[in-house]
């Protein structure tokens, strides 16, 4: 049944085909995990990506909307948010690849990275905006 079906490009039909999937340091080790776990790992990455987008939007909006916040503090808050929004997809990629690698090797999942940074950064940005509102 499967032999009559053309295999979609980019997907190997079985383990005998050379595995060229990127990145090699993830796919070059271990055995194939349950696909549902890989899919869940991908969704976690995407949730981080959306969080990053929201942080970027918040930072840009803060500067763009001419809010009654003291300008220097407002700019500082915007920079913190945008820096977090820039880091988030990078951290997400790092977490995605480490989790995928751990699943392939049947290792325990690595501890999540970036939560502290995210929460701390958003807290700092909030305090800056609050101070800026009081000083305006």
């Amino acid at each position: 049944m499967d032999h009559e079906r053309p295999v979609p490009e980019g997907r190997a039909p079985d383990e005998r085909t050379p595995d060229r999937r990127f990145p090699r340091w993830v796919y070059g080790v271990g055995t194939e995990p349950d696909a549902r776990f890989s899919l869940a790992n991908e969704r976690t990455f995407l949730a981080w990506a959306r969080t990053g987008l929201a942080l970027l939007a918040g930072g840009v909006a803060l500067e763009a909307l001419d809010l009654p916040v003291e300008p220097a503090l407002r700019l500082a808050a915007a920079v913190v948010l945008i820096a977090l929004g820039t880091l988030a997809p990078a951290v997400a990629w790092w977490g995605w690849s480490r989790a995928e690698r751990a699943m392939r090797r049947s290792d325990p999942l690595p501890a999540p990275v970036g939560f502290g940074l995210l929460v701390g950064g958003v807290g700092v940005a909030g305090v800056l905006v609050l101070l800026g509102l009081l000083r305006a």
Partner: protein
Amino acid sequence: MTAPAHPSLAAERTALAWRRTALGLVGGSVAAGRLLVETWGVVAWAVTAAGTVIAVVLLRAARRRRTGVHGRQRSHLDTAAQRTVGRDPGGRLVTACAAALVLLGGAALVVVLTWHG
């Protein structure tokens, strides 16, 4: 077991997550274009166009990435997860998406820092 057991559901949730992300990118770039148009004029709409193009590319890549998976599942509803879903397509799209968003963040930082000066 009450948890959704079939991998096609997981594949569908993942496809939806890609769509939400692409939608966020389109929404963000439209908003950015609207906000920047007063300072940058027509160039601002280039930002919107770029964001939309990236979103469309992500959507198309994500769809092609999982259609094979989905088609196969439907025809083998009772086989094991590994066989029905086939092999994970790898990390190229995830990497490209992360790289695009990091570049976008860098651009946003430049925009905000040069806004008033």
